[in-house]
Every structure is written in C-alpha cells, then in structure tokens.
C-alpha cells in the first residue's frame, strides 16, 4: 500500500502470496497481520500454500553447502597452531 491509499477492508489470496515472507518474518504491521490472519482463517487454499512454503523451508535447511577443501581446512588449523606456538610480541 502506498501513502494516500485507504487501507483495504480485506486482503485476499494474491496479497497473501505476495506478503507471505513478510508475514512469516513478523514484519507486517498489526493491521496487515490481522487481515492476513483473518483471510487464512477462511481460505483453505491459502493455508495449503503457507503449509507448502513452510515445508519447503524446512527441507531446504538440509541442502548441503559446498565446503572448503580438506587441504585448505588443514592448512588453516596449522596456521592457528603455528600462531599459538610461536612467541608473539606483547601489545604495547
């Protein structure tokens, strides 16, 4: 909604889809949240959409991300070890 528009009496399916991330993040204002809650109460299709989005978010959490190569990881541990074994100048 832009400044100057009257608040809608209700929000409907297309709004729910567009606002879903904001809604799940808790970033909608109180009126919008209430309107979306109230729409969801009466709309099984939108409830299904929300459930599907949540299911996807849960599943994507298991996707493995690329890691550092073992060689790189090992050299970092060695750098850490070397740093802590060699005498370091004390801070002024």
């Amino acid at each position: 909604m832009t400044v100057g528009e009257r608040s809608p009496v209700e929000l409907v399916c297309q709004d729910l889809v567009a606002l879903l991330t904001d809604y799940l993040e808790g970033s909608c204002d109180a009126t919008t949240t209430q309107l979306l809650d109230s729409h969801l109460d009466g709309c099984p299709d939108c409830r299904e959409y929300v459930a599907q989005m949540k299911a996807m978010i849960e599943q994507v959490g298991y996707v493995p991300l690329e890691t550092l190569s073992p060689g790189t990881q090992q050299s970092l541990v060695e750098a850490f070890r070397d740093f802590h074994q060699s005498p370091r100048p004390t801070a002024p």
Partner: protein
Amino acid sequence: MDHDLVDPPLLSMPDAELLSRLRDGDEGAFEHIVTAWSPMMLRMARSFVSTQPSAEEVVQDTWLAVIRGLDAFEGRSLLRTWVLGILHNIARTRGAREARSVPWSSIAGDEESALDPSRFEAPGGPWARHWTDDGAPRPWQPSPDALVIASEIRRLLATALARLPEQQRTVVSMRDVSGLSSDEVCDALGITAANQRVLLHRGRTKLRAELEHYYHGHDSRGG
C-alpha cells in the same frame, strides 16, 4: 535446517568461553568454527567475487585475519558477527578489484512475478485476486517411500537453489540453510532489511514452485 552445522554442540557454550578457548590455542574449538561457518562464508564470499577459487581465497584470508585478530577482539559483538564482518571487508575489496558486475549495493531488479498471475482471478469481480479453481495449490501427497522422497526433494532443492540468481541464492542459503538471523544477514551483506526480505521472498517463492512442479507438474515458470 541443520542446526548442528551452524551451532554444533561443542559451540553451544557462551561466546565468552569460546573466545577464551580460541585465545588459549584450543585447536578443536578453532577447527569446529572453521567447519561450521566456512560453507556459509564461501557462499557469501562467492556473491561478492567472480569465481569459486577467488571465494575460497577470500574465506582463507578471512580465517587468517581471525587468527591474528583474536587477541585484539573486544567481544562487543558475537564472534560470528565479527568474523562475517572481516569476510565482508575482504570480499568487497576483492570484488571491487575484480570489477564484479552485480555489487550488493544494488538489488538486481528482476523480475516478473515468481508466481504466474493467471493463477488468480482477474481484478474487478467478486472473487478478484483469489485463487482460480485451476490455480489453487493442491496438497502434496507424500510417496509411500518417505526416505526416497526426502533425498530426492533435497537434491531437487539443491539444484534449484544453485540456479537462483546470485543474490537470492545467497540470502536463502544464509537464512534458510545456514540459519542466520535476518539482522546477521543484513549486517554481513550490507543490505537493508527490506532488500533482504525481497530477495528472500523471491528465492523462496521460486523454490516452492520447483517443489510444486515436482509433485504436480505445474508449468515450471512457477505457475
């Protein structure tokens, strides 16, 4: 999400204790944060620079700076926040040097709606902007073999995530795969909360559409 990856049990200790162990030269503690945080750091670095090898160098340089800087770190922020801040600076400098074309200072303005507008009734009627009969989401029926489906789904989502535009991919990875908070992601990437939500929204909408296509064979444009 795999909470163990971002906050493995060893690291459920308070930040102050983790810091103290690291300063004492506890290799186990160091190795755990390198393992836990590097995947997310790689993804983040990759969004600033031009190549994967360059991203690895950025992450490596970050950890070296962390090793050297631990003594001086005052603990006014979380350790992870501090590490990501170092990464941000190194990645941004490297990215500028590589003249990377899509800096985080601008949000790539895609974009047609991620969900086919014809799935909603046209404006003007009593059901304006509601789902059409054909467009409404149908329940996803799980297959009898739940384990097979779960790994197929994850493989599918991994592929779809990798195909997202860079910025969307990074935000979805950092939020939904690595479990960082909205504030952490905004700080780390140097973007506003609003921009972060836009990217998260577009990425998630596309990923959900990919899953829907898998279950029901809807048009892959997300409709």
